[in-house]
């Protein structure tokens, strides 16, 4: 009896502490986002730094993004071949490859890679700046860490991730086509016919909208966690792993929500 009582009590305390923490995070996160919105007018400060950041993260991520997109296109193509042969006309493969790249694989894979690459980078950079008092130092000079540090990073991601997504889409489709050509003997005419037959201009917009939302999640969350890191090297480590995990999970959740909102059956 007594033991059960303590367990319930512990549980209640745990839930209490957990909800306090959640409320605390929600509050701080909201304020951070509001601060960023308020800083938009100060483009003179964040714009040059944004381009600097965009170059650093953009070029560095291009290779891995294209590599992954290429493999995704190839595998989609092979699987389509495996499933379709003998049941559906070959040109369907063109549709499946291009649609699955544009609608799902391009945006999601790119965002997940970037959540790992730049999410970890942002959280670690800002976290170590926090624990070595560099963020305090910036504030002590009358400068805002939001416009000097956070906004350039977030905007760099929002510039770079959708652009990389479009490259990823293209690469996946091209590699997918060549794989289908090799394995199924799909001709370019058939591929193009299939791809065009099911393609709607909305699809590209949808791909872009998705990747903008993912970009926001992959940058704002790590920036928030790094910015609020505490307690030395361990805190920075914790911020970094949490950043990658929560950015990735948010991307997957957003994927479901956006798909339901934009393409969901009414």
């Amino acid at each position, binding site marked *: 009896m007594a033991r059960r009582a303590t367990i319930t009590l512990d549980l209640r305390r745990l839930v209490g502490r957990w909800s306090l923490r959640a409320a605390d995070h929600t509050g701080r996160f909201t304020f951070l986002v509001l601060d960023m919105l308020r800083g938009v007018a100060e483009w003179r400060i964040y714009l040059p730094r944004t381009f600097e950041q965009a170059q650093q993260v953009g070029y560095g991520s291009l290779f891995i993004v294209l590599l992954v997109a290429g493999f995704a296109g190839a595998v989609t193509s092979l699987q389509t071949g495996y499933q379709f042969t003998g049941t559906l006309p070959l040109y369907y493969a063109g549709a499946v490859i291009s649609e699955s790249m544009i609608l799902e694989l391009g945006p999601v894979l790119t965002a997940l890679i970037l959540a790992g690459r730049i999410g970890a980078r942002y959280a670690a950079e800002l976290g170590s*700046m926090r624990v*070595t*008092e*560099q963020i*305090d*130092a*910036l*504030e*002590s*000079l*009358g*400068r*805002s860490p939001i416009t000097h540090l956070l906004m350039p990073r977030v905007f760099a991601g929002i510039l770079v991730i959708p652009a990389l997504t479009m490259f990823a889409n293209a690469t996946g489709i091209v590699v997918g086509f060549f794989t289908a050509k090799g394995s199924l003997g799909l001709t370019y005419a058939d591929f193009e016919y299939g791809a065009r037959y099911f393609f709607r201009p909305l699809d590209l917009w949808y791909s872009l909208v998705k990747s903008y939302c993912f970009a926001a999640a992959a940058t704002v969350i790590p920036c928030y966690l790094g910015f609020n890191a505490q307690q030395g090297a361990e805190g920075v480590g914790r911020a970094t792993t949490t950043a990658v995990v929560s950015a990735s999970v948010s991307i997957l959740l957003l994927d479901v929500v956006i798909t339901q909102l934009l393409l969901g059956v009414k």
Partner: protein
Amino acid sequence: MIQVINVSKRFLHNIVLDGVSLEVRDGETVALLGPSGVGKSVLLKHINGLMKPDAGDVIVDGLSVPRLKRKEIQQLRSKIGYVFQYGALFDSMSVYENIRLGITDETCANDDGYCNDRVKECLRLVNLAPDVAEKYPAELSGGMKKRVGIARAIAGAPKYLLYDEPTSGLDPVNADVIDALIERLRDELGVTSVVVSHDVRGSFRVADRVALLWQAKIRADGTPEQVLASQDAAVQQFLERDLEMGLIQAEGEARAKRGA
């Protein structure tokens, strides 16, 4: 003028400041002494608003710091130089860029000629060679980082300066240079400063007034002579132990010199 009025601050169960009051008049240098971990840095961060008091008020330049809006506090901070205990240099930037960021006035900060001269000047003031400007913080020794931190804090010609242990970890020669700089800034530019220290001798040299932070409260506050003459056991204990440490250190140095 800087007024700290009945400030209390706690971190969870750790009560760091408990009704602390301190006044620094214009043009005055106050040394804030206390054992390490007592909350000297925490008190200093309340003065430029890096931390907010749980209770009490901080008034700088006639403005209540905890109640200022974002723009107002940014403006106030550009008048307050802050020397961080561990330098807190921006490690992705060169020494030059670090010090240049300290130039807070908008028009000056955009004038390359002025900035180059000012950076050189500030490096000279903290006794660093001009070629240090090209280096990155990771390439500097601890004492050099500290002095770059001081250079950055004074670059904007602030009206107030808050030094967090500016001489700890420096060799005696450079500690003297920094002490002399603190005195010069007061005498020539009328800078109002708070110098946090646990080095009793150095701070008695530069300070007009000395305050001792002890167990979350200001235990003593007065001219160096008054504080030295205090009958308070805690004050006596702190001063004696530290002066003794100084003596031992001085002896050790003398011995090392003789040996060398």
